[in-house]
């Protein structure tokens, strides 16, 4: 990531500049500055940034490499779960130790573990610590899991799929099956991750109990912005240069690239895995801001929405993905939040909470049919026109 790379990619510089200005504006408006912007809106913006990050990853794997993965939200969710396990464990441990300290006899290690287990898993009628929680007491190890678990899963899954030359729609369905299997597994109470309830109270960061949420939300906002910046630069680098050309060539004609002597599977596997890891990092930043993660978050529909964002934003351009994710998710919350005014038609009143999904579905068909380049395409058109 040297200087020449950035100069060769002016759009990346523009993006970074825009992101910095955005961050500064938010800081000024937030409680840290003028106090006009509410904490919940800062959280919404922080979460939106995380969605932008996974959308960029999705754009690379789909828009650049031609793999329509309908399973990237699974990695996002795994990232969230991995960080959530530590958050829950550490917070509960604090509570339990305080409570046991009042007893006359000091607790044994077993009693502490039992009490924490009972607190965390009491909700699903258990008190045993499942094996997958083995590292939950260590922040470092759990953060490592954020990267390792999705990375390994993507590596194994991708290796099996690409090796068997599963491509196109078959691969899409296969990735969808993967995220469905994961969601169903997590829905089980026996999964060890609290079933349908998932992990909650994640906004309370252990060690920062006395810090107000307004500060915590801003900190996570900065972290998300930084992650988006780094992720954007990383992917801009990956998709430029010789490697970028190979990746795009695979999208356009896989067989021809293979006949030219490239090991197509390795490239695809690399892209699939690295985007999965970035998706997981986005998830790890997203869920402490959302406060709760549960299996419904990684249902197949979430990954399809991800594809929708990227398609509307414009495939094959990184900023397109960012625009798509930000635009559609904010618009969606505006419409479903009752922000949009109802339209009275005389005989019938259009309530947008009811009709927003119809509008989204139809506009999605329209974009696919008439504007395959998405909003980003429009952007290109406007920028290029004067020059």
């Amino acid at each position, binding site marked *: 990531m040297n200087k020449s790379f950035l100069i060769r990619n002016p759009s990346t510089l523009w993006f970074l500049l825009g992101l910095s200005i955005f961050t500064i504006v938010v800081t000024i408006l937030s409680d840290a500055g003028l106090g006009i912007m509410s*904490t919940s809106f800062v959280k919404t913006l922080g979460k939106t940034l995380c969605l932008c990050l996974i959308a960029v990853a999705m754009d690379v794997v789909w828009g650049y490499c031609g793999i329509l993965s309908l399973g990237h939200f699974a990695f996002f969710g795994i990232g969230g779960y991995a960080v959530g396990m530590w958050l829950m464990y550490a917070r509960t441990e604090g509570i339990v130790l305080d409570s046991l300290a009042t007893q006359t006899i000091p607790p044994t290690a077993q009693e502490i573990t039992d009490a924490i287990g009972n607190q965390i898993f009491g909700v*699903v009628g258990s008190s045993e610590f499942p094996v997958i929680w083995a590292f939950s007491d260590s922040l470092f190890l759990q953060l490592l899991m954020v990267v390792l678990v999705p990375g390994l899963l993507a590596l194994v899954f991708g290796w099996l799929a690409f090796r068997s030359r599963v491509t196109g729609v078959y691969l899409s369905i296969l990735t969808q099956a993967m995220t469905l299997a994961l969601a169903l597994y997590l*829905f089980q109470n026996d999964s060890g991750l609290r079933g*349908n309830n998932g992990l909650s109270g994640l*906004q*309370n960061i252990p060690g920062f109990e006395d810090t107000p949420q307004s500060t915590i939300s801003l900190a996570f906002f900065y972290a998300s912005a930084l992650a988006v910046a780094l992720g954007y630069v990383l992917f801009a680098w990956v998709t430029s240069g010789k490697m970028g050309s190979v990746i795009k060539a695979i999208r356009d004609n896989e067989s021809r690239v293979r006949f030219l002597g490239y090991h197509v599977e390795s490239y695809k596997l690399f892209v699939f895995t690295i985007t999965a890891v970035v998706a997981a990092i986005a998830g790890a930043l997203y869920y402490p801001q959302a406060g709760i993660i549960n299996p419904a978050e990684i249902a197949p529909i979430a990954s399809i929405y991800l594809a929708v964002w990227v398609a509307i934003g414009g495939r094959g351009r990184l900023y397109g993905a960012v625009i798509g994710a930000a635009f559609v998710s904010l618009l969606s919350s505006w419409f479903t939040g009752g922000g949009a005014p109802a339209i009275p038609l005389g005989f019938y009143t259009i309530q947008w909470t009811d009709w927003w999904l119809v509008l989204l579905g139809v506009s999605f068909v329209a974009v696919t049919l008439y504007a395959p380049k998405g909003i980003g395409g429009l952007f290109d058109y406007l920028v290029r026109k004067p020059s």
Partner: protein
Amino acid sequence: MKFNKSLSASIFAGLLASTSMAAAQDCAEPIKVGVLHSLSGSMAISETTLKDAMLMLVKQQNAAGGLLGCEIEAVVVDPASDWPLFAEKARELLTVSEVDVIFGNWTSVSRKSVLPVIEELNGLLFYPVQYEGEESSRNVFYTGAAPNQQAIPATDYFLEELGVEKFALLGTDYVYPRTTNNILEAYLIDNGIAEEDIFVNYTPFGHSDWATIVADVVALGEDGKQVGVISTINGDANIGFYKELAAAGVSADDIPVVAFSVGEEELSGLDTSNLVGHLAAWNYFQSAESDANTDFIAAWKAFAGEDRVTNDPMEAHYIGFNMWVNAVEAAGTTDVDAVRDAMYGQEFPNLTGGTAVMLPNHHLAKPVLIGEIQADGQFDIISQTEEVPGDAWTDFLPESAVLKSDWQELGCGMYNVETESCVQLTSNY
């Protein structure tokens, strides 16, 4: 009906006129009541009704002169059946709209999502749905049934009145059935039912392939014991389940089924003529006979439409809202801490006759009703208990039996009576 409506309207108008002068004096802003129910997504069907019920209650209260001389304003938001969004909207309600109280939530997971926010910002939430217990928050009043107000009495009815000796606990795989069935298993074992006589099965939301499970239940009768089914099956899945029961010819006389999540609304999705005699346990049925209920149903139909039915969580909101109004009036302010103190011991007549009392553990004392399904999709109430005090921590699980919730005297929702210490002040989410 028409006469009554216009009459009451004119009375309300008169009351409004007499109080509006007082209201103008000390009310710069109306008192705000947050309504946090999903209006879209999978839970909309259940929760929209509760939103409407809240709007009706607020309207009635305003017509009766408002509160502390002020107008009440309902602030309605839509968390869209999205659990993280519940936390976000709750924060918005408390910090942006600055509501004085929130009425909301249906699912347990949405409640757990909201809890940290409510506790952080010291809000006040009234939760109207039957739930699994094992929780006590300083900032939540649970106006729905705890397990000992629904599951345990229904199980007693099975043991005592129907002589059931072998139990099938069928549930949807989520926290409410899981916890309830854990409690029931412990309870049944305490009551001399052998562990091998309890069959437990969990199915996913919206499950439709019930043939094997129903066959398994029928086969439980092979050792000559009376079999009964306790169902915590949720929502749509009930339709396939009851259809399969009817197809297999399982009559209520042979294998009775008692359901905790099936009300008048769920039954409207199927033909009940083959299900007559199967049971449901609630704190309220629309068919309850009392003057208060007749008035409530009439007001509801006038407000929301002739074909609407009433249900148990609506009664919970009815009691909760009126208790809150009385507590605010007793405290003379909407300040959360003052209102909470005034809530303890609040009494309000419930719709089934008798009086609901708010206990120091933030639960109500309410009667338990058991109804038999009728061919017209309504319930015939065949058993009604005295008021049962709600219990936050069940007595039938060893870890919970030692816990007690008493916010009034002990100021703790998770008090260990053995070690005489407070385990934690926040709730377990």
